[in-house]
């Protein structure tokens, strides 16, 4: 199982900014146009320059994805192979995934009348068949590596141990509760435009805590309200009985 779970390791020190990954990605997903400066509905990955370094942007394929937990129809799902995949036949176009993603990765086809969500799918169709992602296959320097998640983490660790010029941090090992895309770099990640992970725990856990209160609210609230209603009814009965008694006493006196 563990070796079934694939990942990408991106070594920023090795990237030469040739944009081969972008071209290969567009070809594999039949996306039009030349490489683009930012992620878009037609660019699932891009290479940006920060502090003199070439930085790839793409979906991080979180272990516990915020987008998948947000999607009310379950169109986005973490597959056992690693990719966070999108089932366009389920999507209703609410765009909550775009709000939920801490990296704002999912993009929308605003120009279309039948729009879908677009994002890197880690070439899920190729990965399932045992092939590497298009970007990793196209990378001429090995800056983007495809492999088993555990194996790539070991490899990243080995490089950090052997070369002290690396920042001693694997971005993606713990960020967002762990991802399937890892970055290693010789420049601190906060200088390279990386999102500082907002929490140690995966974001969906924050939501689960709130959703977990639903049964309590229903049970406690329901009993409380029913109890109040019972008291109200009882008071009404008592008031009516007293009034009736008063009336009959009045009649007796007369």
């Amino acid at each position, binding site marked *: 199982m563990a070796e079934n779970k694939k990942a990408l390791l991106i070594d920023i020190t090795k990237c030469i900014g040739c944009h081969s990954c972008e071209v290969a990605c567009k070809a594999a997903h039949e996306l039009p146009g030349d490489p683009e400066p930012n992620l*878009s*509905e037609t660019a699932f990955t891009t290479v940006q320059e920060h502090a003199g370094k070439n930085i790839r942007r793409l979906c991080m394929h979180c272990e516990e994805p915020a987008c998948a*937990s*947000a*999607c*009310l*129809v*379950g*169109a986005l799902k973490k597959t056992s192979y690693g990719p966070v995949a999108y089932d366009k036949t*389920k*999507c*209703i*176009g*609410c*765009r*909550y995934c*775009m*709000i*939920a993603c*801490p990296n*704002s990765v999912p*993009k*929308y086809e*605003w*120009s*279309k*009348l*039948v*729009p879908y969500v677009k994002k890197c799918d880690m070439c899920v169709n190729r990965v399932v068949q045992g092939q590497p992602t298009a970007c990793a296959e196209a990378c001429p320097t090995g800056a983007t590596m495809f492999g088993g998640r555990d194996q790539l983490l070991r490899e990243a660790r080995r490089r950090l141990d052997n070369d002290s010029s690396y920042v001693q941090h694997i971005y993606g090992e713990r960020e967002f509760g762990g991802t399937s895309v890892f970055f290693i770099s010789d420049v601190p990640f906060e200088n390279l435009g990386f*999102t*500082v*992970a*907002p*929490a140690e725990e995966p*974001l*969906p856990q*924050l*939501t*689960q*805590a*709130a*959703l977990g*209160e*639903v049964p309590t*609210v*229903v049970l406690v*609230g*329901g009993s409380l*309200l*029913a109890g*109040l*209603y019972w008291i*109200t*009814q009882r*008071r*009404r009965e008592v*008031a*009516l009985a007293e*009034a*009736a008694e008063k009336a009959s006493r009045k009649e007796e006196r007369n």
Partner: protein
Amino acid sequence: MPDDKKPLITPWRVILAIIFAAGLYATYLRFAVGWSAATNMSDAQPWGIWVGLATLCGVGLSAGGFATAAAVYLLGMERYRPICRTAIIIAFLGYGSVCVGYAYELGLPWRFWHPVVYWNRHSVLFEVCWCIIMYTTVLAIEFSPALVEKLPWKSLREWYLHWHHRIVIAFVLAGVLLSSLHQSFLGGLFIITKGKEYPLWYSTHLTTLFYLSAIPAGLAMIVIALYLSVRSLNVKIDPEILRELSAVLVPLLAIFAIFRGVDLAHEGGLGYLFRWRSETGYFWLEMALFVFIPIVLLNLERIRNSPVALYWTSAIVVMGFIANRINVSITGLERATHAGYTPKWSELAITVMLMTCAVLAFRYAVLYLDILPRSLAEKRAKWLANAGVVANA
């Protein structure tokens, strides 16, 4: 209606015509030309005012429905029975316009039934969606007698009202629970935006904050509707009811303000209260409109005794509420996403058209159904059931 002598073209009708012309043209843009022609939404701001204003405020301002139903049916506050139908129809029309609004808001609106078939119970939006579907049904059931009692068939009428009277309490109870859940979870939608949402609005207790703010806003909405109905729709209500509703606002707003303050301290937002940033301005605008100004005004004897002043104070509360929802859903996310979003005219035109439909429906309901009394009751019912019931017995 004695309006034989009214001219055909009045200023209000001209305004209505403009609203509908603009709204229908915007509808054409949205469905025939595309998103980019009809909206300023973008990858950075995928929700805009159709969620921030139409959904969050449409549902929030309908909260008076469940609060009043609970007060009358569950707590026996017979005093408010005359306004109960008003509260329920406002809620029904509010939810109705939200549901219609989703035809515009969803990218693939013809798949509106998908959440019924495809479930993701880990999604806050799934919870919200189901609650809103069920609560809109509950509201329709709560409201149905107003329509059924106008039917010409006596036996059907009596049969329906007899059974309705017996089971309505179950629906009221379910309605209170469903409302409490989804009013909270509309705020819960933004719990997952940790790191994106600006610290003045982010909280893991957004659920409680949304709940606590929706109730006073919903009551303020009822005050507005009652005042306007008395002024122009030929109905009579005890003016004391407006005064009492407004009096309830003060503690409700104060509770919200205290919770908000404690929560800001707890979540570490206090350091952002006085930074020289646009968010700070929006925050204080929201707090001024929703909390400070109304609380001060409602403590003035002169304001409390004047229905028109109460009407304007309630309008300020509603504006403050709208400011809060737009801040959470738009302002607070702008800095992280670099969106720079302002709504396009057509986004507003569609929202305004849907709200106008709701207002018109309310008007005709009050005119042609028995929503509000047309004459004052001889005896004033007291706070709790006793006196009212005895008087009726």
